[in-house]
């Protein structure tokens, strides 16, 4: 089963990291990612631009485009992982490892129904 691991955090907090702090987190996350990649369990990884760059398409008739992220919450979706896990416990373990490298915030763990690896992406 593939699991999406969604990274949530307070944008104010992450946005006030210095370049060094940001790089430190990224390096620690890379270590976890390398381990998974060696086992052939790591799919695409993405870090998203700030929610201010987001637009939401509401599926009304005609569709309505709104500024901003889907929902206004204290913590925003900053990126996600696609990881091959046996079950929820396994996926939570991966999320815990990632969490240890990245203080605060939360990960949403959710099974993936349809998966497209986007092999043509550059």
């Amino acid at each position, binding site marked *: 089963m593939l699991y999406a691991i969604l990274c949530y955090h*307070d944008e104010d907090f992450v*946005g006030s990291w*210095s370049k060094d*702090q940001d790089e430190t987190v990224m390096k620690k996350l890379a270590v976890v990612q390398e381990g998974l990649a060696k086992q052939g369990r790591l799919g695409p990884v993405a870090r998203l*631009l700030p929610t*201010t760059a987001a637009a939401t398409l509401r599926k009304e008739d005609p569709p309505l485009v709104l500024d901003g992220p889907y929902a206004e919450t204290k913590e925003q979706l900053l990126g996600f992982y696609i990881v091959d896990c046996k079950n929820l416990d396994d996926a939570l373990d991966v999320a815990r490892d990632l969490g240890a490298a990245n203080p*605060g915030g939360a990960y949403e763990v959710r099974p993936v129904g349809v998966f497209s690896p986007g092999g043509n992406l550059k």
Partner: protein
Amino acid sequence: MSEADTAWIETALTSARPQAVGALLRYFRDLDTAEEAFQNACLRALKTWPQNGPPRDPAAWLIMVGRNVAIDEVRRTRKQQPLPEDDQAISDLDDAEGALAERLDGSHYRDDILRLMFICCHPGLPATQQIALALRIVCGLTVKQIARAFLVSEAAMEQRITRAKAKVAEAGTPFETPGAVERSERLAVVAAMIYLIFNEGYSASGDTAEIRKPLCEEAIRLARLLLRLFQSEPEIMGLTALILLQHARSASRFAADGSLILLDDQDRSLWNGTMIAEGLALIDKAIRHRRSGPYQIQAAIAALHARASTPEETDWAQIDLLYGALEVVQPSPVVTLNRAVAVSKVRGPQAALDLIEPLAPKLANYFHFYGVRGAFLMQLGRNDEARIAFDRAIALANTSAEAAHIRMHLDRLIRDSQPKGANGGARQDAKVEGAKVK
């Protein structure tokens, strides 16, 4: 407790600051009291967070603790004084935190921060004081940091900020929640202040650029914050896009010796791709609203430069049109001067010169006017006139980097005009920096 651990606490305090100080200001209606309350709350946080872990909502925690500490202070010093309403002394922080966080709903948060920023850009204050006050109160930079950025002594900066605070207190800014009209007026003033902070950092010369970089970074942080509060305001998108696109080039703007590198000569591989991507995404979003304004137009110009992977690919015809639009919404001789650079690329130096000649009386003391004029004259082979223009530019230069840059043109002019055959005149290599944020 290692240093790395406390760094995260400091980051949390920084990010909670605008909201917390804004709420405390609404409560106490006095900048000094609000700031002191916040500082006291931060001290408590540094003591208790490492043991208890950070609270679920740091801003709510800081607001409540700041309020309680300040109220205790009032109790101690003025025993008879009646307390402000809604001052239930809350002893169990954990229980109260959730309830308080609930009360801090989105609109309060937005108005608190807007009010805080608005108070700092009080129209009675000169621009430099507005910026200094905002950096101190909203961003929480220390007086020492601000003094360094402005290249003045700490004492002078302290005095400047104190004076600004006194003026704000005197003016008795209304603390009521702003209405829709008032809010949009305030938003424009606040946006202008963020633009000023950015320019203060951006227009630094090579030797001071590194020192002033934090001003640009704070401006970006504030713009993003403001945009998050007003997600559908195209001009705030435009402003954020503009400063991101400009700042994306910061690593390539100065040579090792501190001299200015013009757009055409910059190493584009040093441009910050992530910032450019964010800026382009924002300006694309803004344009969909079909409510253009000066920030959006300037951002669109910056976007055209950012999109060109080589100088030759720059769409100067489009930039010319955008400057034309900017002249309509924000007529200014400086805008026309910038437009002339695009005109020179599209229709040649004579057309550009014709465009700027009428500006001479208005820009008689403006460094860039003579730099640009000299460059056009040089391209036309009118070297003697070009030399006079460059001399004047050097005399008016604000920074050593600006002067050095013009001197480089002048040296080339002198070198090229030595008799050495028929084609001695300088050719098309006089360049001027287009789309400068100013």
